[in-house]
């Protein structure tokens, strides 16, 4: 996995991204300095948090790491966590790029509701008796329905991008408009009803298995691979960072800032659209009112937990995935420990406070002063 590669790679010494949390030991033996470098790596905190959570689970939940193969499918808590985190991971990948340009997209939940609704309505599924055998048939060919749903999501992204890049609105306001109106549109489409789907092949996306693993994981892996290739192997990642650090300087340097900004919002909406398809396929219905509710906030949380600064400029896609896993593991832990689910939000908020405070420069300075 690339996760491990990232941790082993020593952080560049002069990089402003590496926090100076660990004081360098006076007599720096190679092993100690490598240890210090690992401590200073941006992914150290999120990974440590995830590891701590998994350790707690190991001691408190019997059989947490137990994996078994049933009917050719891999089962176990870990698979369950990763599977359930899939929509959040998708949304977080999209959100990472938006935040890297110093933006924010709070319309993710509305786009999830909209794309799920469009797909569910078009697929629908009616029962036909064929030679005495009941059979469910899609109203529209499924590929077409999926394309339409993604098209709707892309339009949402274009709208957000146009408002931010074209009109120059503040990202939070620009996406607030869709956040308020998007669910209204989805409800308008469905007349406020929950749309149920009765078409077997559609369920594959959210709950199907491929090679023994949940299909959703392959979608996330593919999106992640394509995104990181685009960011690492092309100049796109660099351009996005430069827009986040200083949009005016980036524009003066000849980067087409507006097109880039439109791209990240369209990309984020596309990720949200896929998450919406996944969610509606998983619950076999589309609920315009509740699908993806607060997902944008969880996605922002995942990105923040992953070490990406909300101030833009630097980002870590792997970090966001780890952040999403932290959130899902936390939820799983809380549920399986028998703690009432109500506590979930309190714990989540305390974690956000702690992580945000520990990432702030002010806190690091305090720490350094204490250590000196």
């Amino acid at each position, binding site marked *: 996995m690339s996760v491990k590669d990232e941790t082993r790679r020593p952080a560049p010494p002069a990089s402003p991204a590496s926090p100076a949390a660990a004081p360098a030991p006076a007599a720096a033996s190679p092993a100690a300095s490598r240890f210090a470098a690992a401590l200073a790596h941006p992914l150290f905190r999120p990974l440590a948090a995830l590891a701590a959570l998994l350790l707690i689970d190991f001691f408190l939940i019997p059989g947490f790491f137990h994996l078994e193969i049933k009917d050719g499918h891999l089962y176990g808590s870990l698979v369950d966590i990763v599977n359930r985190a899939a929509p959040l991971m998708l949304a977080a990948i999209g959100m990472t790029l938006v935040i890297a340009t110093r933006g924010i997209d709070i319309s993710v939940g509305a786009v999830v509701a909209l794309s799920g609704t469009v797909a569910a309505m078009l697929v629908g599924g009616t029962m036909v008796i064929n030679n005495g055998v009941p059979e469910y048939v899609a109203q529209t060919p499924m590929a077409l329905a999926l394309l339409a749903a993604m098209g709707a999501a892309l339009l949402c992204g274009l709208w957000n991008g146009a408002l931010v890049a074209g009109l120059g609105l503040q990202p939070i*306001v620009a996406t607030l408009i869709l956040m308020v109106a998007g669910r209204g549109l989805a409800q308008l489409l469905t007349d*406020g009803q929950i749309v149920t789907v009765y078409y077997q092949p559609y369920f594959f996306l959210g709950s199907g298995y491929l090679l023994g693993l949940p299909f959703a994981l392959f979608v996330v892996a593919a999106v992640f691979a394509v995104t990181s290739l685009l960011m690492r192997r092309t100049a796109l990642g660099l351009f996005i960072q430069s827009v986040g650090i200083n949009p005016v300087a980036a524009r003066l340097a000849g980067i087409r800032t507006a097109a880039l900004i439109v791209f990240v919002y369209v990309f984020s909406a596309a990720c949200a659209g896929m998450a919406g398809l996944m969610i509606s396929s998983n619950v076999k219905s589309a609920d315009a009112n509740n699908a993806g509710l607060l997902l944008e906030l969880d996605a922002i949380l995942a990105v923040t937990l992953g070490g990406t600064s*909300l101030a833009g400029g630097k980002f870590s896609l792997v970090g966001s995935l780890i952040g999403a896993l932290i959130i899902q593991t936390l939820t799983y832990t809380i549920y399986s420990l028998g703690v009432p689910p*109500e506590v979930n939000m309190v714990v*989540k908020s305390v974690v956000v406070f702690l992580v945000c405070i520990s990432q702030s420069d002010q806190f690091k300075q305090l720490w350094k002063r204490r250590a000196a």
Partner: protein
Amino acid sequence: MSAVLRGVRALPALPSFTSLVTVVLLAAMLLIGGVFYEGFLSLQVMLNLLIDNAFLLVIAIGMGFVILSGGIDLSVGAVLALATMISAWLLQVAHWPPLAVIATVLLLGALFGGGMGLIIHLFRLQPFIVTLAGMFLARGLCYLISIESITIEDPLFVAMSQTQVPFLGGFLSPGAIIALLMLALAVWLAHFSAFGRAVYAIGGNEQSAAMMGLDVGRTKVLVYAFSGFCAALAGVLFSFYMLSGYGLHAQGAELDAIAAVVIGGTLLTGGYGYVAGALSGVLVLGTIQTLIAFDGTLSSWWTKIVIGALLFVFCVVQRVMSFRLKR
């Protein structure tokens, strides 16, 4: 004639232009309602707008201050719910006297907001993420108290929900009057006090404000404390209105409050606008709802779409205006 034309052309440059647009829009909406629906323009319908949206007005006032200072407070809806929950629990389970309950809840709200302000200032964190965590915390605390809704039977609260205060030939609820008093206090705070001037200065440019010798940190903490106080007061008004405490109360109210502030003509970048705009913003949102209710054939989700469209229009107007200001 040319003088009138020149006057019209200079209009968008006026500092009160967006607020003016809102008032004109409000009047137009009311007029349309009056033409199409019988009984729409009666005094009591107008007063009901205030009664039904008193809580929204109060949180929009707090939000107005936060936005003027260049921040944002996403926790207000959750703090409102928490306030209804704590009031209900203290009244029904702990049997506290109602006035002590109200005082406690208001104090807790201010402390909650102030705490968030302190974190925002001390650690230089984004208000967005801190108040987001505050929102999770407050909603979570609601469910820790109870997942069920708690009915309030306290005589004072029941009296507050049923009293009709005569007003200009119609009637208002005590909650609406408290909201109006709060608005008066907020206008005084914003435009006639040192605190208000500091808020505007910080929203305009935090660094210059600090260089002028304003206590940026204290003002920021106070702004969020005020917003928390407003949210808690809105919670008290909401529990007068609903006579229950529930963790799901006022879900999404923070967005309605932000929408009201924007529609009321306050720039989201801070430092520019009027606190009183919150009233016109809230009234516009309320009128949309009333229009849809009077029509009867439109579904309620049209409300959201119209609010979204209005937000869009106002953002565009603000943009155009800020272009003109720069020239």
